[in-house]
């Protein structure tokens, strides 16, 4: 079974692309969603308090993602520390999920930092979703109800799209009037043939 990784900067439209893959019957592992689940586990909460402080935990005892994001996206070291805390658990869960879906011709793993985090080590093919900066900022500020500056800060901490494209086996352009579905159908056809 082929392991396909799907990545792209925030607001590039990864989730929409994944939904189309799911419509095509392809299992999709959402690494970022898994990371959010992992973030809520007590072991991780204790570690977060250690290096981010108690103020990142809300009144209900759950991690306040907005506060965590505002802290780590301004500080590369903190971001690395957070990634090193959460990612090993996510990788373990991914391997379990992979075994359960081993009968499919290929599976897709969606992760915003697939290439930066080393998630791509055991990935066979990489799909990168790209979009223009203006569209990405618009999408994220509308979706997360955040200021444009915050989106820009988050974008700065991510690898440049051009660099991601260099590492990609397939590129999906989700900006302007480019249609996603025909692009995804072409990639699906190619992946099924491999």
């Amino acid at each position, binding site marked *: 079974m082929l392991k396909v990784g799907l990545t792209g900067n925030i607001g590039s439209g990864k989730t929409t692309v994944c*939904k189309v893959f*799911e419509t095509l019957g392809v299992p999709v592992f959402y690494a970022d969603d898994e990371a959010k689940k992992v973030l809520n586990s007590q072991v991780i909460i204790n570690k977060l308090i250690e290096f981010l402080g108690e103020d990142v935990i809300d009144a209900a005892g759950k991690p306040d993602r907005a506060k965590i994001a505002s802290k780590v996206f301004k500080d590369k070291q903190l971001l690395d520390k957070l990634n090193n805390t959460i990612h090993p658990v996510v990788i373990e869960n991914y391997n379990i999920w992979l075994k359960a879906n081993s009968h499919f011709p290929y599976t897709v793993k969606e992760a915003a930092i697939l290439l930066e985090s080393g998630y791509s080590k055991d990935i066979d093919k990489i799909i990168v979703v790209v979009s223009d900066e203006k569209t990405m900022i618009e999408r994220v500020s509308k979706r997360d109800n955040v200021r444009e500056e915050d989106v820009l800060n988050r974008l700065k901490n991510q690898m440049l799209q051009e660099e991601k494209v260099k590492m990609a086996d397939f590129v999906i352009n989700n900006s302007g009037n480019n*249609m996603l579905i025909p692009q995804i159908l072409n990639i699906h056809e190619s992946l099924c043939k491999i």
Partner: protein
Amino acid sequence: MKIRLKKLFNSLKSKDGKRALSVFIICLMCSFMFWLFIKLSRQNLIQYNYIVKITNISKDYFISPIGKSELQVKYRTTGVKFLFSGMYTTSDEIKIDFSQFLRTRKSGETRFYITSQRIEQLLFADASNNLEVVSIWPDTLFFSAKRAVEKKVPVFFDKSKVEYSPGFKLYGDLIIEPDSVFVRLLESDAMKVDAAIADTKSIKGLEKNAILTLPLILDADVSRFEISPKSVNVAIAVEKYTEKSFDVDIAVLCNGEVYDIEDFPELRLLPAKVSVNVVVALKDYNNITPDMFVVAVDCNDFSPHPKTPRMSVSLISQPENIFLNSITPEKVDYLILK
């Protein structure tokens, strides 16, 4: 007769016979060539019927022919010229660029026309056929032109018109591409059209995920229009659904905020729980729990001296991809302790 023919064949086998046969064949060929030369040198009239196709039409107009849009062209030519003109291999369509048309106005209407002289010039320029045009009928082609406008409209997909197999329903959001299209239509119809609708007639008995290409139609009856692109791609996720029921504690909705019943110590609801019956996707069956639902009575419905102390229970929030069947009971009795 048979004997005569036999003798003739035998004589042809001889040296003299073979020579006579060769002379005969050469004479026959020469006479055929002479006949062909006479025939092909003679002038003939040939009639061609052309369908007129206007190219590069301005986006500002819708063009339609007034009367005939077919041209009858008579050529005078010799057989030799005809053979070398290649006319017999060309199509019966004549393409005329919109810029070649002249503009006029009649009864307040814009018209475009082209005269036979201009068509003749175009035919000579285009066909490189060396044929003499004898006549062109009709001598002028008229086209009416109505002002066209282009507008961008959203694509509308009516989920309720999709026919699923029994037990199957839409799961999650649809992905429609593109979400808006350009419609070119008569200026007078511009205000009538607000959306392009994905034609769902072909979707029947859906029971698995599908990516469909659906033609677009307009939401209004207009005489002339062009939609670009003509179709949309729709990704539909489909799941099998089943029923599930839960007992859910009734909360109190007050000015948009949801409160536990304990926050109103003077209030008693009878019963304090309702049974919520929903349709849930099979894959979510085990993950859907009662705490994901909020049902509530509205505090604005409380009356200190009610004739019938009953209040309606409404579903305030629920997980995604859940369809509500019923809330039992729909109304509950209440007491306000004093």
